């Protein structure tokens, strides 16, 4: 399936890849194409570069979709993920009553983890995805995932949160408040005391207060995490891998694609940004030889320059080979260096020409 068919038929598209490769821009272009095809699309961005955010009307924190005006027959909306407000909203939704919500939201431990729990951003991106795809208004949700070294943090995020809530360390922590301290063996007590010694008693008390307040809410979180995981593996969800042609970036992308494969999730397309263009069809060695014999002349300089770019282009293709094979039959879409950075719809259109040729 090519990218055009992909944006016209998928219900969810997840753009993933390492930092600095142009994921946010790719996500915006895919959503824009869907809007041009008459669909109602929304793009969830994580941390857009400021000028792109401005261009998309995302200045200021907005945790709900904002429509972007443009000459499309469908609709294009964008939302910038605000991890903390998303988490707060979930707590409010799942709390048994306002008092429970308030106890959690004002807890110092909660305030720490809601912004900093490893994987929280990934998890909240998935929560946002869940919320938006459930919204009948949108036909397509495009998610730009947080840049992460640990490639599949966002896949693991729902599971990780529930594991966290279930962790036996916390079971131990909470034991005293439940009056079953005698059931906890001596070794565990020593363990708990040691942890308290390391992290400080006040942190410990906050944590106990948090888990006490959280009592009864785990179930809701778990169910929701299960649904999100299902969504991610649904055939209507497409993963698009974004990379740049540098060797190290492609190695990470390779790792990423392999991990997705282990989870039975195919990569539906590979977008490689910032490719050096290929000038002519000559071999680098030939140009370099000409540069050598013509050294000292203007023509020699021109050949030396051509040789350098031909060599770079060939090397980039070589780096790309293994990954292209791994994701096959997914198409590999090459986007060359652009005239300038993207910060308006015209810039997005320039990329669109490469993603959707013809």
């Amino acid at each position: 399936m090519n990218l055009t068919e992909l944006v016209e038929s998928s219900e969810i598209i997840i753009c993933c890849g390492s930092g600095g490769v142009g994921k946010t821009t790719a996500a915006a272009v895919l959503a824009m194409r869907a809007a041009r095809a008459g669909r109602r699309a929304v793009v969830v961005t994580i941390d857009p570069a400021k000028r792109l955010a401005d261009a998309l009307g995302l200045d200021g924190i907005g945790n709900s979709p904002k429509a972007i005006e443009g000459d499309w027959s469908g609709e294009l909306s964008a939302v910038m993920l605000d991890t903390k407000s998303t988490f707060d909203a979930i707590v409010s939704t799942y709390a048994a009553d306002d008092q429970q919500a308030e106890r959690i939201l004002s807890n110092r431990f909660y305030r720490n983890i809601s912004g900093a729990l490893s994987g929280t951003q990934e998890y909240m991106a998935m929560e946002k995805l869940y919320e938006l795809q459930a919204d009948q208004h949108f036909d397509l949700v495009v998610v730009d995932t947080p840049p992460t070294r640990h490639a599949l943090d966002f896949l693991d995020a729902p599971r990780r949160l529930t594991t966290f809530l279930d962790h036996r360390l916390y079971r131990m922590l909470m034991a005293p408040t439940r009056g079953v301290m005698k059931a906890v063996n001596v070794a565990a007590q020593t363990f708990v005391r040691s942890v308290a010694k390391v992290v400080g008693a006040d942190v410990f008390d906050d944590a106990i207060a948090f888990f006490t307040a959280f009592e009864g809410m785990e179930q809701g979180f778990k169910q929701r995490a299960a649904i999100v995981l299902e969504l991610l593996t649904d055939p209507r969800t497409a993963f698009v891998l974004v990379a740049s042609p540098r060797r190290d970036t492609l190695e990470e992308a390779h790792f990423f694609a392999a991990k997705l494969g282990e989870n039975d999730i195919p990569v539906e397309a590979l977008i490689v940004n910032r490719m050096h263009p290929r000038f002519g069809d000559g071999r680098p060695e030939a140009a370099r030889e000409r540069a050598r014999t013509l050294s000292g002349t203007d023509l020699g300089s021109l050949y030396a320059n051509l040789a350098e770019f031909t060599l770079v282009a060939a090397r980039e293709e070589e780096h790309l080979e293994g990954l292209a094979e791994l994701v096959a039959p997914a198409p590999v879409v090459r986007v060359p260096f652009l005239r300038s950075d993207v910060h308006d719809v015209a810039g997005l259109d320039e990329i669109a020409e490469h993603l959707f040729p013809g």
Partner: protein
Amino acid sequence: MQPEQFFAASRIAIVAGKGGVGKTTVSAALARAAALSGLSTLIIEVEGKSGLAAAFGKAPLVYEQMVLSEGDGGAIGEVRARTVTPDDALIEYLRGHGLARLSKRLVNSGALDVVATAVPGIKDILVLGKVKQIERASASDRRLGGGTDFIVLDAPAAGHAITFLQSARGLADAVKVGPINAQASDVMGLLTDPTRCQVLLVTLPEETPVNELVETAFNLEDKVGVSLGPVVVNGLYPERAGLDADPVAAAEVAGATLRPGEADALSTAAAFRRHRMELQRAQVARLAEQLPLPQLRLPYLFNADLGPAEIDVLAGALLEGISALDDLTPAGNR
């Protein structure tokens, strides 16, 4: 400025920058430049990435130090490297606090993750605490004639770099007493002392990376109080004369014949380079205007991926750039 003076200014250089700007490349080149100036240099890697050792043609790094490039026992120092991961650092830390028996269990049971969650920044502080310890040990070892003269810390990708370096201040506020508080205070002492540590920010000569670098620079100064060294601009196309020439006319002058289509390939390739270089120059100028820090510039490497030979090319460019810098104001006067 003499490179010797530059490398003596602070014992640790923290190399930081957004993903994809070549942070690891710069760490490798900087370490080699210090080694070429006669210093025994250690690179500390904190994310468990494989790129650094591979660039030197070596097997992946481990917790124990390994040699990445040899010294000659005199004018050239060796480059060594090691990783410092939070798990390793925690085990050491607990051992140091008489909790050795529990340390394995704490890590193996996944409890570290839970603790790390409860106290944001604790992983970062464990890593930085270990870095501080290495710095201290290297200072005393040197009197015995060995040890490390210069340390390059390959920091996590920004924006995590800010959180990483800010963890000390945050923790010192959040945890008022106990060993963690002491650790955080020690790390803050390290970060805010320009004779012990400075940050080198890396960017590409492109709009978005330059914007983010400027923002990071001000954040680091304001929120961490760390001293900023020169900015490293990576990936500049080297100057090349004669790119304005028309290929057909140039062929006539040189008495050469062009194959079909070649004139077009030559002129579009030349135009592409001229255009990109113009953009790069504009971004370098903008960076200089927005951030009053000296710049060290590294060339884009057309000919090969990063390997030992390329690291030497880049180390040479760094040394050249450092030599062209103004002399340092003594740290106390800054």
